[in-house]
């Protein structure tokens, strides 16, 4: 199939701008087409065909108890396939909409919530907030609308900062480090762009009750697809940055990882006649079968300058930019940490005999939180702080989003990595002896998520690592 390359536009460039206008005025054809497509998909939910809304949503993930289907619950989160899988997923969804509205040129818009030139960038576009819209002079239900219960929030400015996502030069890194897209090991590690903005924006929009806060319901929110189109766009943005290296071009990545990557394929739709995207078909979005490009793939100048500076800067913890990774050894670990509403704190004594650290402090510190679970409900964001000893001042090492833990089966786990290297000078100022560390994990109560009946999170193991 050959055809013109379609343009995916920023939804705010297509929006009528205000809630009142969205209710009464005609919409841009792209958003109108989206609404008609979603409406048509929802109408097929009773039959639950492969072009129905629920089928598309369940392909991502579905609540526990949903009947088994081999084409459902596929979402690849905290894996290096996060980006290509979602690219194929969006392409399949886009093709479904095209078919249902009879427009092969229709392209899914994206939501650039990081646009510094748009004062409304963080707001959910009004086409998604009005419960009614006017079609041919008649006020009708808006299929893109969700109640404030199901879509309570909007992105936080802190969470859409693109600097952490764009800084890594490499697509994958050896654990505990992660690249732009993930790690090169079998562990459950999210890449930089998946962690932020992806995970945080899910939590921001989903709040404590919304679809977007859990993988099992997120794709039922029409804004989900625009959020992921933006994440897909950010892959293109990163790809264009000088010095960015895709997985297949990196040195030092295990051959098995490269083979696994190159041979991957993603299937969607009817299991009898699935739509299959091979990895090589997903590399170039302007070629068949994808045939799209994004209107804007440039970083804002200030972010570009900051990324360039960090990429040229000296190594600091996990910001080291070499494909031949240094080895990180565990210094200390603690198990079975339950983090409730008041947080949890553990003093870890380093196993100095492992590395002979008695003579000084480590040059870098990484804190791994592995096997993190949420029994039922938890906050959307948690802080990780460190202190030189019990009673000493704490210093912020980092934070992580728990997107993917709430509303999923109890055995759903995530691993998180926090680079605490920047806190070392503060620890030294507190007369840190380098033979132990206090690690504290606490919920960010401003982050949304659980407020009553919080079951918190359970961390199987907290490990402190230092470079060899």
């Amino acid at each position, binding site marked *: 199939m050959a055809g013109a390359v379609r343009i995916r536009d920023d939804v705010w460039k297509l929006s009528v701008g205000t809630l009142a206008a969205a209710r009464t005025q005609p919409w841009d054809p792209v958003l109108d087409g989206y609404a008609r497509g979603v409406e048509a998909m929802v109408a097929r939910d009773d039959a639950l065909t492969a072009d129905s809304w629920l089928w598309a949503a369940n392909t991502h993930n579905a609540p526990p108890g949903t009947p088994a289907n*081999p*084409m459902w619950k*596929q979402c690849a989160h905290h894996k290096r*396939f996060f980006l290509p899988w979602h690219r194929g997923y969006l392409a399949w969804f886009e093709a479904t909409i095209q078919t249902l509205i009879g427009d092969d040129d229709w392209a899914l818009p994206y939501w650039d919530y990081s646009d510094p030139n748009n004062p409304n960038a963080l707001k959910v576009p009004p086409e998604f907030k009005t419960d009614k819209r006017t079609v041919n002079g008649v006020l009708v239900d808006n299929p893109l609308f969700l109640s404030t219960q199901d879509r309570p929030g909007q992105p936080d400015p802190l969470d859409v900062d693109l600097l952490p996502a764009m800084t890594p030069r490499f697509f994958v890194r050896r*654990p505990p480090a992660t690249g732009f897209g993930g790690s090169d*090991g*079998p*562990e*459950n590690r999210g890449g930089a762009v998946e962690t932020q903005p992806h995970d945080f924006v899910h939590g921001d929009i989903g709040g404590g009750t919304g679809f977007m806060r859990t993988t099992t319901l997120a794709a039922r929110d029409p804004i989900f697809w625009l959020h992921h189109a933006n994440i897909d766009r950010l892959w293109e943005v990163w790809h264009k940055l000088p010095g960015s290296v895709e997985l297949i071009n990196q040195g030092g990545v*295990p051959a*098995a990882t490269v*083979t*696994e990557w190159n*041979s*991957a*394929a*993603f*299937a969607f739709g009817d*299991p009898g006649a*699935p739509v*299959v995207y*091979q990895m090589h078909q997903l590399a170039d979005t302007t070629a068949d079968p994808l045939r799209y490009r994004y209107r804007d793939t440039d970083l804002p100048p200030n972010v570009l300058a900051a990324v360039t500076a960090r990429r040229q800067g000296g190594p600091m913890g996990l910001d080291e930019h070499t494909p031949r990774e240094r080895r*990180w*050894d*565990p210094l*200390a*670990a603690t*198990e079975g940490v339950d983090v409730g509403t008041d947080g949890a704190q553990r003093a870890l004594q380093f*196993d100095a005999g*492992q590395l002979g650290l008695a003579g000084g402090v480590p040059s870098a510190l990484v804190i791994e939180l*592995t*096997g993190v679970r949420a029994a039922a409900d938890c906050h959307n964001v948690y802080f990780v702080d460190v202190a030189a000893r019990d009673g000493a001042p704490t210093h912020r090492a980092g934070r992580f989003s728990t997107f993917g833990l709430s509303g999923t089966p109890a055995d759903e*786990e995530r*691993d998180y990595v926090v680079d605490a290297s920047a806190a070392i000078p503060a620890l030294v100022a507190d007369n840190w002896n380098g033979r132990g560390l206090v690690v504290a994990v606490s919920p960010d109560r401003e982050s949304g998520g659980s407020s009553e009946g919080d079951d918190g999170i359970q961390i*199987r*193991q907290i*490990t402190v690592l230092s470079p060899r």
Partner: protein
Amino acid sequence: MTTASVARYSPRRWLDRRGIADAHPGWWLDATAGLAWVALVAWAVAEAAGPAHDISAMPGMPAVPPSAHHQHGAEAWGAHWVLMVVAMMWPLYAAPAAALRRTVFRRWQAPTIAMYLAILTVLWLVVGYLARGMYLLSAPIIPAWAWSAAWLVVAIAGLRSLWRARLLWTCQQVKTLAPCGRRALTGAATVAARAWPRCAALCGPVMVAMAAGHPLPLMVGASAAVWWEQRHPRAWRDPTPTVVLAVTLFATVSLSLIKEGPSWLM
């Protein structure tokens, strides 16, 4: 080659710099598997060439009467099966072993990986004996080649399963271990036990196919299929392992029908 270049690439310098203990677990597993393959080939050739050769006792013998296995006994069969597991299955565990190594203190790396491999090997041995017992019970009516062929057909059919494809995606994932001590060892054992159902579902049919006999073509074909699949876990309905197993099936049946063929092939 100059003296300087010899010094630069000398194994001693490499060992001094890297330390052989620091080698990736995959290196050790591949090396051990290579030795196991050498032993398997030697075993097959020796049995075929031995003066007191009893064709009915050979690992690869088709249509084996149960009573004929008394000479070798369960111990010899078990030893051969363990060699097969090391040769065929251990290379599949390189990535999980590397992940386990990363989570524990350095002096606990070898014990935890050893525990992980031991549990998986013991579980494969249990499956081997169970499958062998089932085969021996059915041997009066089912010839060995038919047993192997039937399980190869099961394996080929399984390659079309969408659920099996999903299972492959998580085949290599491991959980975090305690960094040292008894909890690290029990953790490694638990990780192995949890991984086991996936191993059995993915590789079980080809392993059970060899419970009746394990001629070299069958071992090589089965290994090639599972290794290929492990290297391409997200390939969608990849025809390669299907073709490999189909050729193996054809070879297994054909060789069983060639009475005068080289016995070590059978």
